[in-house]
């Protein structure tokens, strides 16, 4: 009996626990009910001759599933996943790398805040998509301009959350640390940083959602037919142009899944790095 079998055991136990978990069951049940209603809504016309508004016009799950099983075999579909994922993660990552230090600097230094907060606040209400034309001019390739717009989508949310989180760190923690002999650097590293961590992850989760919204729209606007393109947004757009409605829905659900996977990833990292937040 080695380590592997033990791990298998715990994995099996976990799977068992998951299946018997009521929340998990409710989740599965709700999705099944949703799909059934959708299917019935679509079939209503052929069964009873009555067209159900909205749902009646959307291809049923069974049709979408059939289409999906064909699409999965196409390399182009997976290329779309790869391209969108790449754009989202790169834009998101750069937004984190620049946004977190920027937000922290504004939180701890009033001169820095005085300098950079006003322009930041003026730029913030501009929707990322309004940047599309300008960024196409700014950046040499379409790829870069899509990534830039994606970056903007996450950046503002990240900065605002980090700034708010860092400034909301309880002064009592700072004072307690100070009276135990902490230097300025200690305060930053041992109090401000861990104290801001929850807000960093909230910013990341919200930012990730916005990134997916933005990347899709950017791909639709600028992706098609140019030097670069593709991505799930373009996949939907070209399916629509080609009149393949069930493929449009395949694209939509793919985005939903992609977004779910990315935010689960962030939640998981947050869960791992903040042990004090998972209790009982």
């Amino acid at each position, binding site marked *: 009996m080695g380590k592997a079998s033990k791990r298998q055991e715990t994995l099996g136990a976990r799977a068992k626990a998951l299946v018997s978990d009521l929340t998990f069951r409710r989740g599965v049940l709700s999705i099944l009910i949703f799909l059934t209603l959708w299917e019935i809504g679509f079939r209503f016309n052929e069964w009873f001759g009555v067209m159900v508004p909205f749902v009646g016009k959307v291809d049923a799950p069974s049709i979408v599933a059939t289409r999906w099983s064909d699409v999965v075999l196409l390399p182009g579909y997976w290329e779309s996943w790869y391209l969108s994922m790449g754009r989202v993660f790169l834009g998101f990552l750069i937004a984190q790398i620049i946004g977190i230090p920027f937000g922290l600097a504004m939180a701890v230094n009033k001169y820095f805040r005085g300098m950079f907060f006003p322009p930041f606040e003026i730029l913030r209400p501009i929707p990322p998509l309004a940047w599309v034309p300008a960024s196409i001019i700014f950046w040499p390739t379409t790829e870069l301009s899509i990534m830039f717009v994606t970056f903007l989508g996450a950046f503002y949310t990240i900065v605002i959350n980090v700034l708010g989180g860092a400034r909301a760190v309880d002064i009592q923690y700072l004072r307690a640390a100070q*009276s*135990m*002999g902490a230097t300025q650097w200690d305060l930053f590293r*041992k109090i401000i940083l*861990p*104290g801001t961590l929850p807000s960093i992850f909230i910013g990341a989760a919200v930012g990730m959602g916005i990134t997916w919204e933005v990347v899709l729209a950017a791909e639709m606007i600028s992706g098609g037919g140019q030097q670069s393109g593709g991505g799930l947004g373009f996949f939907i757009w070209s399916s629509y142009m080609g009149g393949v409605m069930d493929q449009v829905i395949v694209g939509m659900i793919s985005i939903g899944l992609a977004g779910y996977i990315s935010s689960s990833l962030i939640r998981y990292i947050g869960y791992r790095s903040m*042990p*004090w937040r998972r209790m009982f």
Partner: protein
Amino acid sequence: MADAPDMMQVNNVSKAFGEDWEREMVIENLSLKIRRNQLTAIVGPSGCGKSTVVNLLAGFEKPDSGQILLDGRPVTGPSKDTLVVFQETALMPWLTTYQNVTFGPKLRGDIPRDQLKEAADSIIETVGLKEFRDKYPLQLSGGMQRRAELARALINQPLVMIMDEPFRGLDAMTRQLMQEFYMRLCEQEARTNVFVTSELEEAIILADSLVVLSNRPATVREVVQIDLPRPRNLEMLSSSQAYEYKRHAMEMLHEEALKSFKGVGSSSDFLESYSRRP
């Protein structure tokens, strides 16, 4: 240092807050002695500036005029020698009990690593949190959090331990248990304590001397020596001696509290404000 009787001396300290054109005096000519190895309790009407006194003693704020001496030397800023145990709790939520307790010594590096573990474990055991050594603060009950906080303060061996309403927000039962626990702790080891509270009974049963502050701007109204025998217990509160202390202090506090309602008018206003006090 020679055997000076006073651990801390507060000489004619004043402190005001606000901009120049509307400065508000919070503390005016406050003089106070904190005796070595005694527990000095400070009480005062709500809003009189008790927290400012704490911040001044701890070095978080500097007096506008006057002087605060610790062991003969002026207090220049926060340090481990005037350690504060805060209202509610200031345990870092991201550190376990053990990590919280070792936070200070690790920062300063003044206890060698191998001794630190031993020292921390023994202090954690003293406050009865041995089984909760590796739990996070939110996993502890209110009373346990206060005890963890005490442990975190004790390990730093401060010259003066300043307690700023440390048992506030606890339910009555837990509060009593904490008072008894703290009483034992003070009686077992010689330590200089400043205990700021708004609960008069708590102050009387714990203190060697009771400082009653006046209404804002705060100054010392009277210092009452509490001569209840040691070791003490909570039952002593019902003794006639304790009752006399309480009656006397209550009278002063009531008088001071009324001053802040001067000009407010009717007694209903007073009652309303009084019932809204924290």
